């Protein structure tokens, strides 16, 4: 299996990047049936949010898509090639970048060194590893913090280091699990902006798991998982979609313009009966 994205993008741009069929995940104790027959196709370059209540299967799906785990039933294809146990490490190293809610930086290494960690699997030349990591740190605006340890960085800076680490191998698929979950709103906005910008530059595909519907509303597609089932799949601006902008998504309302905003008690369009318990309302953004 080809382990890089770029070659395939140019040669065969048509197949979706991810094609998941009938995914079931039953954990070994047999009591948790985390995913039940989930089908998901993600075109190349799409930016997708997975939302849903806790325990709905979001992270499980992300882990399966990220080759961190294998489904009990069903298949996943990345670039038309099935994921199987023999190639998961190489795929993760070269084609997938992970961003975690808790950053998961190595505490004894500097920012620059943390970014180099994934390169140990793909690049033997130490100087090239350093150069590439430095370049990524520059792109996330942390060139001047290269020698700082994670403990000396703010939460926002740590997540930006984690972004650089996720992107350093030029993956075609970026998976982010609650990437702004530990950040204040200003840092969340900054991190998301950088993430979106870098993903767009690279024509990579982005899949984000989030509880935050305001964040989800930034993406062109929102998939909702509940009790292990895919219960809603909405794409912004798609003509045949019943949700041109995910307006009817639980907890999201149209504000009169093209923007989607989060409903809240102060918002006259708020309908508590449609707002799920997992959706934690934030103050609505002011219309432009």
């Amino acid at each position: 299996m080809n382990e890089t994205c770029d070659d395939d993008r140019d040669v065969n741009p048509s197949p979706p990047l991810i094609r998941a069929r009938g995914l079931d995940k039953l954990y070994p104790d047999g009591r948790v049936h985390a995913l039940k027959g989930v089908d998901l196709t993600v075109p190349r370059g799409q930016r997708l949010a997975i939302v849903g209540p806790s325990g709905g299967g979001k992270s499980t799906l992300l882990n399966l898509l990220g080759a961190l785990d294998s489904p009990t039933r069903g298949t996943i294809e990345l670039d038309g090639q099935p994921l199987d146990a023999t190639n998961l490490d190489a795929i993760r190293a070269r084609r997938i970048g992970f961003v975690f809610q808790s950053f998961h930086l190595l505490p004894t290494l500097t920012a620059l060194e943390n970014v180099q960690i994934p390169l140990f699997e793909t690049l033997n030349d130490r100087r090239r590893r350093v150069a590439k990591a430095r370049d990524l740190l520059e792109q996330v605006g942390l060139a001047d913090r290269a020698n700082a340890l994670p403990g000396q960085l703010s939460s926002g800076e740590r997540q930006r280091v984690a972004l650089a680490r996720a992107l350093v191998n030029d993956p075609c698929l970026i998976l982010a699990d609650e990437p702004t979950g530990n950040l204040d709103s200003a840092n969340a906005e900054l991190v998301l902006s950088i993430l979106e910008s870098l993903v767009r530059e690279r024509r990579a595909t982005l899949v984000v798991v989030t509880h935050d519907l305001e964040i989800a509303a930034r993406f062109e597609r929102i998939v909702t998982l509940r009790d292990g089932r895919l219960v809603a799949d909405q794409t912004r601006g798609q003509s045949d979609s019943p949700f041109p902008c995910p307006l009817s998504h639980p907890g999201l309302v149209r504000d009169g313009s093209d923007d989607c905003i989060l409903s809240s008690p102060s918002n006259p369009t708020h309908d508590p009966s449609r707002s799920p318990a997992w959706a934690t309302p934030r103050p609505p953004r002011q219309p432009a």
Partner: protein
Amino acid sequence: MSWWRLIWSNIRRRPTRSLLTAAGIAASVGAVVALSGITDSFRRNFLDLYQSRGIDLVVVRAGTSANPGAKIDAGLGERIAALPDVRAVAPGLVDVVSFEREGLIGVPIQGWPVGSFLFDELKFVAGRPFVSGEDTPDTRKVILGAILARNLSKTVGDTLEIQLEPFEIVGIYESGNIFENGSAVVPIEALRDLMQIDDQVTDFQVMLAQDRRDEAHVKQVRDAIESLRDAEGRRLGLAALPTRDYVNGFAQLKIAEGMCLATLTVALFVGTMGMLNTMLMSVFERTREFGVLRALGWRPGRIAWLVVTEAVTLALLGAILGILGAWVLVVVLSGLPGINGFLTADLSPRIMLQGVVLALIAALLGGLHPARRAARLSPIEAIRHE
């Protein structure tokens, strides 16, 4: 960032634990290296005692190698000297005495024939060697090795009491061999008097003709000596041993080697258990970190290699500390009166390498299981680990 920077950052994460682990390895390596070094020093110095004089064979009573209590008839020396290819024969008689007032136990007293080629290797720093016809057994003369003279605080003209008999010190010598520097030499007849034995010796030291020292000739001479018979045609029961075989057969060396082996076994066990404990704790504490590395694409083999190289680095650090410690110990011991006549302050590269190999084996035995555990962690479960 180099691989070693990564390793070093992990070792420095828990500096006290890392230092204690390295100290455990250092203690194990140090004990083995020091003991092996001392044993090796004994062996080398004994061997040098003979080889520096060009001794090819040592003749002793068969089956009693290196037992100074076993004696052979001194008259056999002439028969051995008469054998083809034999250039010179020197009878040797050794006893061991103590100078308790000075705290010196087990000092060798050698009895040499006056005028023997054995004196040729001695360099007199004070006084003179024995003189034929002048220094008879009745006159009770002794010469001292430089280390022994220093330990006893004696000089030429002083009197030394050996087994309650007063001996006049007529010379102080230096030899290339530390045993001789720590021993005393008296005329062989005087030592026989002291030991109250008849015309007997402990061994004969045999030097072959210069062009007859190859293996084939040595074997011929050995066979000839061991075939010597008495007047009734019975074999005399002599063993003619090449110097290396003779020295390696020393009971003291065998005991020391046994102690080395026992120490090595204990050290390996202790080192391995210490390393195993440290690396298991380290892997447990860093479970989530390994999960993240796996998520970032690190192969299980690379994770295992990370853990093993950390263990090896710690072990090498311990080995260096242990070897340094052993060296300091040997230097200190070799300066102590009573020991300075036996022990030279050096460690051979072979012994140091033995310490490094011990540390590496402990690292591998103690590191492989934790490495395997780390490599087999499920990325998902590891990341969720609290």
